[in-house]
């Protein structure tokens, strides 16, 4: 079983501030996860802001280099991809989806620019018509068509549409891994589910694995196969998605779940500020705590 992606003992340590007023931040501490290339799955990374989930995603994408440990995609480390050709191969296999659709597209340029670039350089389409058919195919996968998108500027489309175009662009080289960093947080709630279900359909119909980064437990519950919960850089709970979210074991996971508001608590007056004591206590011991395995396959850092 060749591993699609292996993240072993990866840590990332930032030093900010000038030479004199230094401040040290451990963004990610000893993160481990692996995706197999046999079965496509949706692997979710859950965490609040500052939990290190985005830093981990950027390291997998090669936008940041880990301070220690290494990340291998199909056996090769990012640092080994020196030449442009090697990097292009990596881009054919791994594609990102960014958070803010309006920031993903250069507001001054037409939207289909990126589609053509991917079709030509990544997919290798030689003629314009070949490129257009590849693009149209990818757009259909996300429920759009080239006619709707050609020649348009980013602000002429809605957030939901733009995000779909971004996903279509990522699908052009038929990647085996999509890394979606909070892909729906900027999209209207009613349209959010259409994109979340789209990610699930991509897994089922096209065998694309997705690393889904979010702070929203509800969407995570809806589409994830496995998930990781991160607290200030540490993986505190990891394993099969639904069992963990139905009955979280780690105090921080429980705190997260209790804090999630839902329309079902209408009229139940359940709005009382969450009790942080247990989670704070667990955080004190995080340095010495280790990941302990449970029967249902999850790991909890206690």
């Amino acid at each position, binding site marked *: 079983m060749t591993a699609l992606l292996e993240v072993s003992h990866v840590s990332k340590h930032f030093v900010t*501030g*000038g*030479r*004199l*007023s230094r401040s040290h931040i451990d963004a990610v501490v000893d993160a481990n996860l692996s995706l197999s290339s046999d079965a496509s799955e949706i692997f979710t990374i859950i965490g609040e802001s500052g939990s290190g989930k985005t830093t981990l995603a950027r390291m997998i994408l090669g936008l940041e280099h880990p301070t220690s440990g290494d990340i291998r995609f199909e056996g090769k480390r990012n640092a080994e991809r020196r030449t442009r050709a090697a990097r292009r191969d990596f881009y054919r296999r791994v594609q990102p989806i960014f958070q803010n659709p309006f920031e993903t597209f250069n507001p001054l340029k037409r939207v289909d620019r990126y589609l053509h670039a991917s079709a030509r350089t990544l997919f290798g389409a030689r003629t314009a018509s070949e490129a257009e058919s590849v693009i149209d195919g990818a757009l259909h996968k996300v429920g759009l068509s080239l006619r709707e998108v050609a020649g348009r500027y980013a602000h002429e489309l809605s957030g939901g549409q733009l995000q779909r175009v971004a996903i279509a662009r990522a699908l052009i080289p038929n990647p085996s891994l999509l890394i979606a960093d909070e892909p729906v947080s900027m999209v209207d709630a009613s349209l959010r589910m259409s994109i979340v279900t789209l990610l699930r359909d991509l897994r089922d119909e096209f065998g694309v694995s997705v690393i889904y980064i979010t702070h929203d437990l509800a969407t995570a519950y809806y589409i994830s196969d496995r998930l990781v919960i991160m607290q200030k850089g540490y993986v505190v709970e990891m394993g099969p998605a639904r069992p963990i979210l139905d009955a979280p074991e780690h105090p921080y996971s429980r705190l997260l779940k209790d804090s999630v508001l839902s329309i079902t608590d209408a009229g139940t007056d359940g709005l009382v500020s969450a009790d942080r004591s247990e989670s704070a206590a667990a955080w004190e011991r995080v340095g010495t705590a280790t990941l302990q395995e449970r029967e249902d396959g999850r790991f909890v850092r206690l």
Partner: protein
Amino acid sequence: MKAYSWFVLKRFAQMIVVIYVGVSTAFLITHLSPINPVDSMLSSITTRSNFSPEAIEEMRAALTDLYGVDKPLLEQYVNFWQRFLQGGDFGPSLLAFPTPAMTLVMRALPWTVLLLSTSVLITWFLGNLFGGLAGYFQNSRLLKVFGVASMGVQPIPYYIVAFLFLIFFGFVWPVLPISGAYAMDVQSGWNIDFILSVIQHAILPVTSLIVVGFGTWFLGMRALVSNIVNEDYVTYAELAGVPRRRIVFSYVMRNAAVPQLTALALVLGSIFSGTIITEQVYNYPGLGTLLVDAVNTGDNTTVLAVSTVAITAVAIAIFVVDLLHPLLDPRVRAS
């Protein structure tokens, strides 16, 4: 206060580096010239009669020290720094032989500092005040007039504005003295007549500097404030019905002052150049007039002395302005 002391230390180190690089640049430039100044300056002295031999000897020593052909460049560089650090003993000037060049410079420096500090203070405050009001009250016609005037005057160089003022007050409406720092018949010292005369003579140069400087600050502040006005904390204060005067000064202007102070540190170098150019037009006895006279008489030591002192003075002035920065911006103080 630990953060503040770190900040001061960092800024002080920056100043030292600027002085070192600037003064070294001056040294290198003087050594670019093909002709060797030693014999040219000595010959022009010895042709003039009855100067004490020790003074001539002293000049020869200084010149060979600095420009001696036989000495390697590195040794001259070391000598140069030794002389600079001993209070700028570059040897006697040609202009007023045998008085040392540095004495002439030290006599001229205070006048430049007087002109520079008064004009910078006035333009910085007035320019930012009116620019801030123009940025906040964008419909007021009076402030729009200021805007148009600033746009008209701001690009005009110091020399031209000073020259136009000179013509106006020299020929058209001669009510102000147009040259020198104080009247001849006044005894210099801390007496009233002298001070009044100094003020009267300074009016024209300072006004000329203010007219040029005001536009820069006015337009910079107006652009800055027209952005700050859309900041959340300003809109929120307006929503809360906080009195307009309090919003304009403590919210809008107070926040705009921080970047405007950094801007002052950035442009101090060019304002200094402008000041000594303006001095020369009114032959105000500052560094500018001294520099031009030195160049016209081929006085190497004084030109070198003026350049090095100018570079050092600007570096110190920038350091002082940087020290004010944390006082205006608590984020720097507490970071």
